[in-house]
């Protein structure tokens, strides 16, 4: 897409909403932005309704700022907290029914290939842990088995946030939380490992405390998904509201997790490694 496609004619300029004007004049399109440029351009409209200190909103801002081709990227989501910031981003975004995101993305990516065979169109799934690990696990795995050219990004806050903080498959074992009144009795679902064995060509695990690593992982995942095969990035996005820590501790909590279960890990297939090497 060219920026000209969304630039209004002079006569309409002043009647368009402020956020639209900002998207045209100061959006991410065609500018090759990265997380280092955050704050200098409009990756998102300011007044999203996330809680103070929300890890999910940070994860979304960082991931969106890292897309290699925002002017031709479409994000598919699912109901949950991630909806709030994603629907305020400068990208086409759709969420339909809970858990179906990788199916919607499969159909969309294929149709975009049919309709625009000469253009690069990146389809990125960006949803919470419940959407991927629980209700949508079958459709997530099948999209990987089928080798769909899509990037799947999990915003892992280790619980269902939007419904009031319930146990998800990604909650840590032993955590006492709504719907796990005696503590969760099984481990986090190993989606990271499942991604590797299900055929993802690039898989990474990061936290919102490591901005550049996160940015690099998202960028590589989108690039590999374009040409090689499915990719997966799992981002730790702690939730102060439901895990009951002060909102200014989000990054600290994420940093601590990096020493423990959320140490940075990256896997790529030989084909993906070769492809990324040749890009540089």
């Amino acid at each position, binding site marked *: 897409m060219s920026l000209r496609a969304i630039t209004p004619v002079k006569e309409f300029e002043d009647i368009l909403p402020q956020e639209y004007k900002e998207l045209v004049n100061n959006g991410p399109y065609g500018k090759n932005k990265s997380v280092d440029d955050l704050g200098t351009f409009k990756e998102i409209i300011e007044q999203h309704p996330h809680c103070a200190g929300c890890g999910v909103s940070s994860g979304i801002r960082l991931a969106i700022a890292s897309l290699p081709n925002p002017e031709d990227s479409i994000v598919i989501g699912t109901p949950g907290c991630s909806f709030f910031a994603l629907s305020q981003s400068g990208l086409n975004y759709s969420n339909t029914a809970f858990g179906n995101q990788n*199916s919607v993305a499969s159909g*969309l990516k294929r149709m975009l290939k049919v309709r625009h065979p000469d253009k690069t169109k990146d389809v990125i799934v960006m949803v919470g842990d419940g959407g991927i690990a629980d209700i949508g696990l079958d459709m997530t795995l099948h999209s990987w088995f089928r080798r769909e050219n899509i990037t799947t990004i999990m915003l892992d806050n280790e619980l269902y946030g939007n419904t009031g903080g319930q146990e998800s498959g990604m909650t840590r074992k032993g955590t006492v939380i709504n719907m796990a009144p005696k503590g969760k009795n099984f481990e986090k679902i190993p989606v990271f490992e499942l991604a590797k064995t299900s055929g993802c060509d690039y898989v990474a695990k990061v936290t919102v405390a490591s901005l550049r690593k996160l940015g690099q992982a998202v960028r590589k995942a989108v690039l590999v998904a374009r040409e090689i095969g499915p990719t997966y990035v799992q981002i730790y996005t702690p939730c102060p509201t439901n895990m009951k820590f002060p909102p200014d501790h989000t990054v600290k909590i994420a940093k601590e997790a990096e020493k423990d279960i959320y140490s940075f890990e990256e896997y790529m297939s030989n084909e993906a490694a070769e492809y990324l090497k040749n890009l540089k």
Partner: protein
Amino acid sequence: MMAKEQCVKNPEYIFFEAPREKAFITGSEAVAEAVKRANVDMAIAYPITPQSESMHLIGDLYAKGYLKDYYRAENEFAVMAAIHGASLGGGRVFTATSGPGTLRAMEMFPVWAGSRQPIVSAFMCRGVSLPPSIQPENIEMAFLLDTGMLMFHAEDAQDYFDMILKAYVIAEQPEVHLPVGVFADGFFVTHTRDLVMLPPDDIKLPEYDPKSAPVPAFDMETPPIRVTRDPLLNKSNYTSYAANATWHQEILAAAERAKKHIDRYLGGMIEVTNPNAKVLIAASGTAVSQSREAIRALEEEGIEVGLIKIKSIRPFPTQEIIKATEKADIIVVPEFNAGGWLCREIKAAIDNNSRVIEGPRVYGGMTMPKEIIMNEIKKAIGKNK
């Protein structure tokens, strides 16, 4: 064998002018013949009896090059979600399912309508449990009445062919732009051979033009680009509720606006035979064919019975049915399901609805011999012994 070279013709030519030739084919084959001429970009399949054969045949069409993409997905919810994604991408799509598959995919149908996607899906109706049945029964249509999609009910393979092909043109009208479900009673239509008049297969519909849609395609090519197609979930205030309600009203209004296109392309939402008869049968789908047999047999006994064939279930032809039943004393509604959804619809539409005889109804795999319709009519007019 690769796809024939097909040339694009306007819908009016394909539907009304092109010479047609007889083919002795099953309903499943009629579905594939429609898709072959519909210029479909992509289809997604998941097997279920009695739908499977039609989606095999569409897979064959893809292999020959008539479609640009096709795959077997992991379950019906995934199919309907992926077909939604494909439609968001701005192309023409097709899928089909049956009974339990319809229910499994249920969550996606209001999404299609709410998102204003002109998806065409075939439904080969069957029982939905419990107890389990794979036999013909159209109770699944009852569940879909308020999903926002348009619903056409085919009587036979000819109807199925015509309705699917025409569904695209109706669905894609800019003032309509809604999904269409095209229904037939499984096995009776899908698995039996019938004479179907087909236009040549070297012609096809013009391709879908996403720029004529009232909502922009999700392709980062169609302004205004920054779109959340699933609006207004995330604010709890009156403005959001009012906007959401308005959106619903617009979907209902779009279905209302579809009526003139249904009249034009399907030749009316209903078809009435012998409208002056005091006794009428009102039916849809295979029950229409069985009713025709009953009417013929009753005629021989000197009993005059008229027929209302209801082709469009959504939008429901309320005014047309009111008019067609004005002179009737008795209206019999035979159905292939236990719930009697068509009977309810008719009773809710007309005055003096004690004129409506509920049934006969068959289900669980039972057929509907003409005699049970005849008996119901005789009982109603007091001629039964």
